[in-house]
């Protein structure tokens, strides 16, 4: 056994030692001898990123409200610390107790982006556990996966013992309760527990399924190994957001984190149906909190944290049906308390002078909008439902309000995209600059700058575009070069995502169980922090695919047949495949679909229940 506490001389020799010390105000300490289940909540990225994640904050609080369970946090040590840990045989430890992960009953990973898979596996390795579920013995904690990535759990199915599909507030407690009960009854064994857990709605036990393939490599069948194991796993949701648990306290980091502020989750789901957007589909049905609940939560969090900023979080904040009441109620005390409000995710079609004044913060000179595509034709294909007019009106308001830096988000490689659409991106940016010069000179804020930030489209599971081909790397490079040539205004700055990263992201997002050996190969060859440019290694991934006989094009540029069994068909997110198919067909016809607030389009998510004003 190693000493689990990190020696001070090691802490003195690494960057940002504050990442590793725990002891934060509001962190939860329990007597480990008095709890019945020790739960490690692991975030496969740095402390600064993990501490900012809202899901982890909610679940940490929810699980710790249970007196029999102690939930602690675990983050990925940065590479300098990893080196010391290897050198001095220091195992991965939890923030609160400093105990190694082997002391826990369950270790749950929050998987927020596909490029964190290798970090999660590297952490399992640092903890000293076997990477493959089948190799784990009775002494190893149950390794749980959850978060938005696991809506397609298949690429990581071999590494996780249990996967939580959907929102975790209720189901994680049910899993722990079952664990405690079986331990107390003496009926616990890994196999017996996993089998029993498979009966909980929202729980997927990958090892209880057999997958067969056709000669052409497509999936033939998913077959549960036993009759009592469900053939499809339906995601879990929290029905009533006003009654859902929400933290009253936040663990206060000593060092600066990415989102170092109060985050107030206003609603879940989205009334829009952007056809590329996975979040917009998998978080359905929409469920709002009342302004009363939100104000109570905001005040309570302010009192317990001392943060001077509240960020209102949702997929599209201006779609919140009671936004004026909420902001007015908040402003009734926030100004005096020197607390500012921030609203990320503002839509172009609902941005107003009034809204900007409410959130106007002198700390930032910039504002971001997401038209996503350069022409109306393509914006209709993706169902973005905003117009050029909306954008010009919004940037006009922003300029008059003193914002001089406008950032615009776009995507390359969307279905049906042509060179005209790409050229449209440059033209739109130029028109935004033009809008600035339309203002009389004294009204213009100083130093105009327009940045267009272009990512590469990744056809995500559970979207109307899930069957689409991803553009090849070469084509994406050509498109990026073409756009660069189209930009003639020197006030327009152009940044773009590395297409190679999007290619690997697509493989990991769209893959099936046969990817596991390649992911394992990458991890065994040092892959970690793929989401960090400086650690992403494309060539290592390519050698991993080659070594394991995997053709990445099968999952990306091939596209999926409309009648094919998709790797994620084992999961039921509520929204039906038939709806996604209808939306795909409309996309090709350039037809838009109204938002849930205007008209129900019959997506199917209503069958999950959930209290809201739109679904029948």
């Amino acid at each position: 056994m190693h000493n689990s506490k990190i020696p001070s001389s090691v802490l003195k020799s690494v960057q940002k030692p504050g990442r590793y010390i725990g002891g934060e105000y509001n962190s939860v300490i329990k007597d480990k001898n008095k709890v019945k289940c020790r739960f490690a909540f692991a975030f496969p990225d740095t402390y600064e990123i993990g501490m900012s994640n809202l899901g982890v904050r909610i679940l940490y609080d929810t699980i710790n409200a249970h007196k029999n369970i102690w939930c602690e946090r675990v983050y990925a040590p940065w590479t300098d610390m990893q080196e010391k840990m290897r050198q001095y045989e220091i195992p991965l430890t939890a923030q609160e107790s400093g105990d190694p992960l082997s002391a826990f009953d369950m270790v749950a990973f929050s998987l927020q982006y596909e490029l964190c898979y290798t970090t999660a596996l590297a952490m399992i390795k640092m903890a000293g556990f076997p990477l493959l579920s089948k190799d784990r013995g009775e002494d190893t904690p149950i390794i749980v996966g959850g978060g938005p990535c696991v809506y397609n759990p298949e690429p990581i199915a071999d590494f996780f013992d249990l996967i939580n599909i959907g929102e975790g507030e209720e189901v994680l407690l049910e899993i722990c309760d079952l664990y405690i009960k079986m331990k107390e009854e003496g009926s616990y064994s890994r196999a017996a527990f996993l089998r029993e857990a498979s009966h909980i709605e929202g729980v997927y036990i990958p090892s209880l399924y057999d997958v067969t393939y056709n000669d052409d490599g497509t999936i033939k069948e998913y077959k549960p190994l036993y009759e009592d194991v469900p053939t499809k796993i339906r995601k879990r949701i929290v029905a009533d957001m006003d009654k859902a648990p929400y933290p009253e306290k936040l663990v206060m980091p000593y060092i600066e984190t990415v989102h170092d502020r109060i985050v107030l989750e206003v609603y879940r789901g989205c009334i829009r149906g952007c056809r590329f957007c996975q979040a917009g589909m998998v978080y359905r049905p929409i469920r709002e909190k009342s302004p009363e609940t939100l104000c109570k939560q905001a005040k309570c969090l302010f009192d317990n944290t001392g943060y001077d900023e509240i960020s209102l979080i949702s997929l599209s904040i201006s779609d919140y049906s009671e936004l004026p009441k909420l902001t007015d109620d908040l402003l009734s005390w926030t100004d005096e308390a020197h607390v500012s409000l921030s609203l990320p995710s503002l839509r172009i079609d609902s941005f107003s002078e009034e809204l900007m004044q409410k959130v106007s913060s002198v700390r930032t000179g910039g504002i971001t909008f997401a038209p996503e595509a350069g022409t109306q034709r393509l914006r209709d294909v993706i169902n973005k439902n905003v117009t050029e007019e909306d954008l010009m009106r919004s940037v006009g308001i922003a300029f008059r309000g003193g914002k001089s830096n406008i950032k615009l988000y776009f995507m390359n490689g969307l279905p049906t995209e042509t060179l005209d659409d790409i050229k449209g991106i440059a033209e739109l940016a130029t028109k935004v600059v033009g809008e600035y010069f339309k203002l009389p000179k004294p009204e213009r804020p100083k130093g105009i700058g327009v940045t267009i930030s272009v990512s590469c489209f990744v056809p995500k599971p559970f979207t109307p575009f899930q069957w689409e081909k991803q553009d090849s790397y070469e084509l994406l490079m050509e498109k990026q070069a073409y756009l660069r040539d189209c930009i003639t205004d020197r006030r327009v700055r152009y940044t773009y995502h590395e297409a190679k990263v999007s290619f690997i992201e697509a493989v990991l997002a769209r893959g099936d169980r046969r990817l596991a050996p390649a992911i394992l190969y990458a991890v065994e060859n040092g892959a970690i922090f793929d989401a960090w440019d400086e650690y992403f290694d494309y060539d290592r991934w390519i050698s991993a695919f080659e070594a394991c006989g995997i053709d990445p094009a099968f999952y990306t540029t091939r596209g999926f047949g409309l009648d094919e069994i998709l790797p994620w068909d084992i999961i039921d997110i509520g929204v039906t495949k038939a709806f996604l198919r209808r939306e795909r067909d409309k996309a090709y016809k350039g037809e838009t679909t109204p938002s849930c607030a205007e008209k129900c389009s019959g997506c199917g998510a209503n069958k999950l229940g959930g209290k809201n004003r739109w679904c029948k």
Partner: protein
Amino acid sequence: MVQVDANSKIALRIKFKKTGKLQYISHLDLVRTMHKIIIRAKLPIWYTEGFNPKPKMVFAAPLSIGTESFSEFMDVRLTERIDTAEAMRALNANMTDEMQVTEAYYPETKFTEMRWLSYTMLIKTDNADKSLAEACDNVLNSEKIEVLKNTKSGEALVDIKPLIRSASAVLDGENIRISAVLSSDPSTFLNPEYVIKALREKVGIISNPDCTKEGYSIIRENSFFEDMSAFK
């Protein structure tokens, strides 16, 4: 409680400790942390005027990462005079055990009057014995102690002896214990790490490359005026 004009300069001084794991928190992070603590404690904070109002907090002699302290000072500007015992209670309820206020009062001095800081350093090193302690003591009490120091014009050999008011080394169990009083004046501030550095270079302590076997801790104990009376 007396109501006073918001522009008047009521500074509340707190003396606090920053110990244990909090030695790894940088000064900048301490400032951010303290900002939230005073808000949580609901002190009647005075905010600066202008576009971006901020509380006014001033710290004496910033501490470097890796040093614990029982003698940190901060002045925070208030809009009204409040009961100091109550302020101390409210602040401590909003801090963890490793950071606690030990005194709160309305000051009559300036931080610039602070002149000396005392430190205890414990050095864990191979073969710590009486003769090694004596060798350390001899270095600390020699005429000149030259070490490579980062200065404004790059690295230079600097004599730190004039910045040391007193220093001694003794054997303490398996460790060497150094007690030193070093300059806290901003222009001649001496980081205690340089004392360790000098001993490393001149006596060869902490030469084992395995940093889990050897190491040191530094604790700031007290703060003083020029005449060595306790700073207040």
